[in-house]
């Protein structure tokens, strides 16, 4: 039986790991390679690195840190941020990443998803979706360019429609970033996660809001997420990965320990 995955997410800016609250107010958390090595040693099942500045500022980034990460860790990892072309993806995979994760560029040009899937296989292609619950209209909206508050825009897509679109175009996995919860530590938005799960045939990763061990349990049992992604609770050592995995295993979840 496939194990449910615990995925620390490292937001990267200028070669350092940072973390914001609701995608704002980024504070520096530490060195990428050291943190990656620590998580791998503690039992993380996979890592995701988001270069949060890349998409928002439209510049080409130095990605040589990827090879430093690949040299030290022995678990799979994905890289996200500013991947706009097959060439960008090629470079990242050549540096040693296992997957590439695209978000804003997929919204600008949805054909990118298919081109990446055709070239590298669907197992390499993750689509990240920044989804915002708008209480006024009672809808889930897909946001774009969320690297900074100023750059963030609301797209024409509603979340469920975009989830279907990206699968149709060849997404091999979806990371659902539930923005209202991000950094709040109140738990994942299970209502939204369940709604997405119902229409999502590829692996689905919950992201945004984990603050306690039971939040992971809820994402796996109530919404059948394949993995749960979190950042601050791991960076700030509010939750230790070995303790989390032991807790989940004792609750009967298929977990690699």
């Amino acid at each position: 039986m496939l194990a449910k995955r615990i995925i620390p997410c490292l937001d990267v800016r200028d070669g350092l790991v940072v973390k914001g609250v609701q995608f704002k107010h980024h504070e520096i958390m530490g060195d990428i390679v050291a943190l990656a090595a620590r998580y791998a040693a503690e039992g993380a099942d996979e890592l995701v690195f988001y270069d949060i500045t890349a998409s928002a500022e439209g510049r080409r980034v130095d990605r040589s840190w990827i090879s430093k990460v690949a040299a030290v860790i022995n678990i799979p990892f994905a890289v996200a941020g500013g991947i706009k072309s097959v060439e960008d993806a090629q470079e990242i995979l050549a540096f040693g990443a296992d997957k590439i994760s695209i978000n804003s560029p997929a919204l600008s040009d949805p054909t990118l998803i298919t081109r990446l899937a055709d070239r590298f296989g669907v197992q390499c292609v993750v689509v990240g979706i920044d989804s915002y619950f708008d209480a006024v209209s009672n809808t889930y909206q897909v946001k774009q360019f969320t690297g900074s508050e100023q750059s963030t825009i609301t797209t024409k897509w509603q979340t469920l429609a975009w989830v279907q679109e990206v699968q149709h175009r060849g997404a091999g996995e979806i990371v659902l970033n539930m923005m209202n919860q991000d950094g709040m530590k109140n738990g994942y938005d299970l209502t939204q996660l369940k709604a997405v799960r119902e229409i999502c045939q590829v692996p689905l990763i919950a992201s945004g809001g984990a603050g306690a061990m039971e939040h992971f349990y809820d994402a796996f049992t109530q919404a059948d997420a394949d993995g749960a992604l979190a950042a601050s609770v791991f960076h700030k050592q509010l939750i230790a990965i070995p303790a989390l995995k032991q807790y989940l295993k004792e609750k009967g979840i298929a977990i690699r320990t």
Partner: protein
Amino acid sequence: MRIGVIDTKACNLNSVLQALQRLQAEVIVSSDAAELQHADKLILPGVGTAQAVMHGIEHFKLQDFIVNSTKPLLGICLGMQVQAQTSDEVPLKADFNEIKTLGIVPGHVQKINSQGLRLPHMGWNTVRHTDHPLFRDIAQDSYFYFVHSYCLPLNDFTIGRSEYGQSFSAAIARDNFMGVQFHPEKSGAVGSRLLQNFIEL
């Protein structure tokens, strides 16, 4: 101890090379049988498609070298699958329905009959092994990292099995030839242990 990594130019060797470096193995990477002769052991990695790996093997005239080798050889992922006789994994729009592979072990690689589970089979899954030396000091039902849509069914040479809708060979061994369907280079501590075991065989 010198490990020869067989480069079929069909895939990115980075992950395997980095894993071997972490184990401080002496590594030579080559597509040339004459150079690979100087290795004590061989690794045949494989990511991509069976046809791409077989093209590489044929292009560099490595088939005789591989099948006649008496050195310990470890195939990884497709590097294991191509040790079977044939594979169903043909390119889209191909006018043939199977690919002839190396035939080191009997069997036919087929699409995983996943009983509705999502394909590819991607993620961490357990392996039950037969205490072959490759699995020395590795607990039963340890989790390894898999990424594949095709599999080799169980056969007489299966030394590790996994389940994903169906049972399949997660590891095989015949004489000096070994293969693993999972990626030991991405399988955390147990994966490193398995590679270390191979180096120490």
